[in-house]
């Protein structure tokens, strides 16, 4: 029932944050308003800290904010030119994370040692820096498990499903991955293929997936 992802509801600064931790797979209906954690009101949060120990902590908090925000608003992709308004800024304290700093934070999050929560989408020309990235508030592996689990539970092993169905089908409405980007879904499915749990056949548009 939350709208599809690109326009988030305006957040309000109320009491302490209480969102589900990113690692749990149980399905939950996200609340309509995203409660920003207290640290987003801490002005130094929006300045990249020179002290490396402090910076490590700061980046951890950013990672946390990003994943929870995107999980809440079901954002799978983040584009630097169309950033959600209050994700990297807090107008009430007049602080914004600057563009180069945003890139740094996302670069940091893209490293596998930090959980690999972000992946840059490579652009067509090599010299340009990528402008958008995937936000894996669940990693593809987790998505793969989730989808496979659902397939298993609903007894659709052996059945053939279209990709569209997995994304937008009625049976999927209560699942977390509904409305996922096509590209991302294909990535997830390729993970499953690698694991040998699924097989994709057919053309691009009418591709079908069979689960084993």
């Amino acid at each position: 029932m939350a709208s599809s992802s690109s326009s988030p509801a305006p957040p309000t600064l109320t009491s302490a944050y209480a969102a589900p931790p990113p690692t749990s797979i149980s399905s939950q209906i996200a609340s309509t308003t995203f409660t920003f954690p207290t640290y987003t009101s801490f002005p130094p949060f929006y300045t990249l800290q020179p002290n490396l120990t402090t910076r490590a902590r700061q980046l951890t908090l950013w990672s946390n904010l990003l994943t929870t925000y995107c999980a809440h608003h079901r954002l799978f992709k983040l584009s630097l030119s169309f950033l959600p308004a209050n994700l990297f800024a807090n107008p009430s304290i007049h602080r914004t994370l600057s563009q180069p700093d945003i890139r740094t934070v996302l670069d940091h999050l893209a490293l596998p040692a930090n959980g690999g929560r972000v992946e840059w989408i490579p652009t067509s020309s090599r010299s340009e820096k990528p402008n958008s990235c995937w936000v894996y508030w669940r990693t593809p592996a987790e998505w793969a498990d989730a989808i496979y689990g659902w397939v298993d539970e609903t007894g659709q092993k052996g059945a053939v499903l279209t990709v569209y169905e997995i994304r937008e089908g009625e049976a999927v409405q209560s699942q977390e991955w509904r409305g996922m980007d096509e590209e991302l879904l294909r990535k997830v499915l390729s993970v499953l293929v690698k694991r040998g749990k699924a097989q994709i056949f057919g053309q691009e548009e009418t591709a079908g997936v069979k689960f084993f």
Partner: protein
Amino acid sequence: MFLRQLDLTPALRPSLYDDETLLFVQDAVGLYEGKFKIANYQIGHVYLTSHRICYVDNVEPRTYSIAVNLKDVDHTEFYAGFLKSSAKITLFPKTPKNALRSPVPKYASPSDALVRPGNSPARSHAPSPAPAPARDINATWICPICGFSNAVPTNFDPATANQHTKLPACQACGIPPPLVHMVKAAIAAISNRPAHSSSKTGALSNGTNGRGSFDVSSANASDEIICPRCTFGNHASLSTCEICGASLTAMNNRHSQLIGDSIARPESPGPTLGGESIIGNDTIETIKFSFRAGGEKVMLERLNEALVQRKWLLQSAPPVPKPGLANTNGSISDLYSTPPPPQRVVGIAGLERRGAELRKNNQTVIGSAFEDLEALMTSAKEVIAMAEQFRSQNASSDSVTPEARALLTDSASALGLSTTRDMLGTGSSSETLYITELARNLAEFLTDDRRGVLRREGGIISLVDLWAVFNRLRNGIELVSPFDFEKAANMWETLHLPIRLRQFKSGLLVVQDRSRTDERTIAALLSWLRQLVPPQLSSDGFEQLPPAVPAGLGFGHGATAQETAERFSWSVGVAAEELEMAEDTGALCRDQSLDGTRYWENCFEDFVVALGLKVPSAASVEQMETDQIMKNLESMGF
């Protein structure tokens, strides 16, 4: 010779009296008493002033520093160094005039030692003098003809002996010795007699007992007494040697023990006295200063000059009579302290008249003083008092005339506030000596509460600012070059002075009190940052915070370098450095915005802990940064 305990300034130099001026400084000096080194007083500085000569030890300056008043010194003797033995200056005390008869003799003069029996009623009144082994039984004289060593008779007093004194004949050849010879032998024996602590021995006895603590320290470990004359080891309970008959008093044993010890220690020529306090020790007769690094000739000159000039008498001397003063008031200082008006006119007219008289006096003083340099020297005291007054006035007002400036600087150097280069000897060691003295001067200058330099700057001042202030005070005479200044600043640590030099990450050098550590500064900053809540944030309502955040009202407030400087009365540069230092330790974090850079208390840790997140280590963050940079460079084609 009365050795007094010495008061030291915080910079470990002797604190001078008001009239006292510093004449000479020399380091690497040791003290001797007679022939013996005095333990613990072997490495130090000696400061010669117009009233005293002071020794300040290097190792433990506060416990082992003494001073000798020049007015107690009778004459000096110079010994130029030879081979391994360094040059020495010996100070001989004045014998008090009433040594023989006085009921309370202050000094144990040589005469006391030998004329004991006549003094026994006198001795019973004496509270503290040493009951010297009255008869120095071991005083012997060698007959010049046959070489037999006879004992010096106990009633022989070298001070009062003259040609009519009957001298005993030599026991072997029967010929009486010349008087001079006998006197010399007696004096030699006395000066070789080791000193003992005076006040500790209450017992008044002569001979072998009642030496007090001295005996304890000299007790033999091996229960055998070595005879001083023939070195035979006698039984502990004997009183005369079995072989040669010399007396075996404990005192004499100590003498021989010392000689034995000194033979066993080849590296230091000269035996050492054991560790009793020599302060206030009445029986020390002569003090010798051994100059191990030169400077003895200049010292001797200045010392003799000081003895001749006798500046300590000036204090009680009547003031120099001033020609041409109408009233009977002698000097300016008298005028200031007790100003009776010559005519008792009250009101404005009286005040005006008084002011006019003051000005007239000043004029006369300055006129007469500057006319003749000699007259300046004699009236130096009044001129200095006036200069002090003017300086305090000038400190409040801004107008300073050039003559007043010159006068002030003259008086400043005359007051001995600064060690000038000509006070020190020549030679390469004087360079380091200059630097160490400069370092001590600086320490005194900084810790001087009257000026409050450090206090005005909030306890921390940059080296450049300090250099400027210090040189400004010197007023054009004996300015210090920045190089010397920095060298002196670096010596504070080694000299254990109460201030220290500190270098910030950016290279800024500051001077601060030794007790001010980084932790204390950080704690002060944090407690201040937690205090205020700026009004614009309080409307957001931080009522329910995760309990890990320490400040109850939010995050406290952020401070710019400017605000910090105002709060702690530092300079802005220093404040910025301190904030950065605190940030480096992780206590603060920064917040850069269009307003500027503010520093907050570092709450990131608390957030992370509250959310239970895992944090990558700082090293991994750094690694990632460098990797990222390398990748970017590669992608750009380098």
